[in-house]
């Protein structure tokens, strides 16, 4: 702007960074520097100045780095990694020892709950629920390339199927799982069928609207759902054994009485953990295998090029629908576990748009399409905020920045996508 062509490069960099810093100051000042207080205000000039200074320093450092040869190399490398597709074809036998790692992880996962306190048990269960949700949304967004911003609707439907089902019809934990799955999938199908035939981004906004509709209905239909007060689900049980101090349902016996041990409140959570863990493992197996099956291949093909798919005789609506319903089903199952983890109590505040955004963040950071990535991202994004309680206020801010940053830097995720290798005999 106010730099002249014959300025030394350092000065140009300084002037440019100052300009950027000024803009930052102008942007940050009103919101973070002047805090509304009733009809009046308080001033906090140090916050915007500090923020603008950070922007200035960052910009200046970048500009200076761009002047040095190693800095240029770094920037070039960054640009290159951005352009890379991050897809590679497997070589035969490169995952020969994978099963050993998986077996170790599986056993570790099974043993883990017995060493956790009640608080960490609930965190671990929540993390696994998010693994489930992430896997479900990953099918829709990562594989089929459909942006679903109302995924939380199916999660809510799952949780409320369990809660309202046990309130009104005495539905138990075990029967709730398949029922919630089926119901969420059905709802996904009913919503998806008309919506999925329309073009691209509209889907995002329709699903967003749908998610809000579900939440608003749950919140406002006081007589049926209990409104903001929420609904209560049954206690989970195993073959008629309950995990409470005294049995809540007729004919059920508490677990500790049956085995003659002392009562521990942890038992219930260990039980839920183990069930979620096994279901999550099953889903991981299911979805990894699906990727190499005709259905999974069709989803990815559809993401790559819908028109080509149609020219090959594939019904894009039903293929999208299958992905959508499969995702919804997984979300529904996640909801049942959420209701159980919450001590059987659910209310609409757990199912806001933010929840959808969080699940989307898991899929995005996991690398859209990679099962391993999604599992890791789900664990990190749920466990880390619990560890860093001091930053709780900034959680959403950090998620948002991460999402933007991820798109700018590695839109396909950290882990490269692996494509299967085929020989004449089959998949190697």
């Amino acid at each position, binding site marked *: 702007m106010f730099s002249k062509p014959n300025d030394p490069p350092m000065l140009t960099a300084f002037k440019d960074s100052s300009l950027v810093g000024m803009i930052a100051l102008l942007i940050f000042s009103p919101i973070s520097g002047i805090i509304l207080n009733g009809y009046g205000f308080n001033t906090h000039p140090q916050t915007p100045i500090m923020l603008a200074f950070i922007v200035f320093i960052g910009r200046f450092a970048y500009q200076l780095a761009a002047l040095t040869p190693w800095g240029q190399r770094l920037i070039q490398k960054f640009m290159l990694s951005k352009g890379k*597709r991050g*897809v590679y*074809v497997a070589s035969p036998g490169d995952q020969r020892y994978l099963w050993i790692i998986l077996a170790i992880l599986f056993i570790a996962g099974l043993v883990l709950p017995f060493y956790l306190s009640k608080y960490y048990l609930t965190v671990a269960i929540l993390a696994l629920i998010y693994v489930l949700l992430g896997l479900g949304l990953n099918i829709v967004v990562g594989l089929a390339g459909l942006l679903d911003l109302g995924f939380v609707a199916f999660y809510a439907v799952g949780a409320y199927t369990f809660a309202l089902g046990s309130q009104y019809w005495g539905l138990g934990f075990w029967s709730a799982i398949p029922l919630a799955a089926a119901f969420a999938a059905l709802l996904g199908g009913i919503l998806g069928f008309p919506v999925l035939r329309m073009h691209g981004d509209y889907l995002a906004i329709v699903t967003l609207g749908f998610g809000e509709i579900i939440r608003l209905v749950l919140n406002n239909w006081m007589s049926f759902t209990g409104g903001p007060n929420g609904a209560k689900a049954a206690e989970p049980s195993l073959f008629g054994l309950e995990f409470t101090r005294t049995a809540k349902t007729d004919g059920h016996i508490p677990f500790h009485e049956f085995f003659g041990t002392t009562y521990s409140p942890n038992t219930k959570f260990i039980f839920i953990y183990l069930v979620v863990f096994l279901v999550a493992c099953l889903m991981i197996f*299911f979805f990894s*295998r*699906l990727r190499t*099956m*005709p*259905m999974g*291949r*069709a989803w*990815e*093909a559809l993401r*790559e*090029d819908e*028109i*080509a*798919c*149609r*020219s*090959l*005789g*594939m*019904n*894009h*609506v*039903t293929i999208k629908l299958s992905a959508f319903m499969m995702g919804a089903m997984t979300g529904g199952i996640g909801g049942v576990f959420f209701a159980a983890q919450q001590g059987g109590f659910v209310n609409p505040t757990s199912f806001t748009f933010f929840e959808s955004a969080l699940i989307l963040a898991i899929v995005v950071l996991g690398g859209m399409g990679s099962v391993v990535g999604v599992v890791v991202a789900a664990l990190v994004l749920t466990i880390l905020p619990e560890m860093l309680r001091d930053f709780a206020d900034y959680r959403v801010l950090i998620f948002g920045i991460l999402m933007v940053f991820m798109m700018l830097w590695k839109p396909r995720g950290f882990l490269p*996508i692996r*494509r*299967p*290798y*085929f020989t*004449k005999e*089959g998949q190697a």
Partner: protein
Amino acid sequence: MSDVASPTPPSPLLSVQGLTMRFGGILALNNVNFEVQKNSITALIGPNGAGKTTVFNCVTGFYKATEGQVILNDNGKTTNLRKVLGEKFQWSDYVNPPAFLERLYYKTFGGSHRVNQAGVARTFQNIRLFREMTVMENLLVAQHNHLDRNLIRGMLNTKHYRASEKRALETAYYWLEVVNLTEDANRLAGDLPYGNQRRLEIARAMCTEPKLVCLDEPAAGLNPRETVELSTLIRHLRDKHNVTVLLIEHDMGLVMGISEHIVVLDYGQVIAAGTPAEIEVNPKVLAAYLGTEEGDAS
């Protein structure tokens, strides 16, 4: 070309009757009539903007024609390619429940994929491969409708499922051999050189087991050697695999060399049709290509 009064020779595979296409106020196609004989190689030519690709899109079901019919007649099995796309309800449907239900069915489940299922496959002018999937996966996806898609059988990896996948692999390898891409089976489709991508797209279309394959400018961007190979391939498809070929092409050498029947379009109308020898000397065609005083051909 006047009305379809000409005596119909032994069952054309594809007949296009009175095809008209409007985009808003623009008349892109105006009463286009032509036929593609079974087992022939038919070319659709014309200057840029004549409406060739629009005809292709109507035939392969990507555009819904404003008027006219596209009929596929394969050994007595007749498919109305316009109906399967799903049409608007007519007033008469409300008093004729079977017609109403049929239209409702096609409106709900119809679409361009039905055209392919009826036996018409196509390639695209700007190649549309699944670029981030391997060559092999591209060919497996194309066989989607012939595979065992049962989820449970797939999860349990049953014999039936394995056999189905094995057959698909064999078909894919067969076509890779035909288009000479066996070496590239496990490369990403997007990484292939341009000419190979064109051939892969043809192989992919053939994997859907079509009766009629429509090639949209298959020689565009190919070097002379690749063009010669392409014409050998097209002939091979027709002679050995019993398919009928309809192609749009600008390379007159290729068109004149391989096609038996040529349809010439200009300004959305058929201006001539016949054998290459007839077309070469047709004054209307020459005028369309070289321009007359009142028209500008670009």
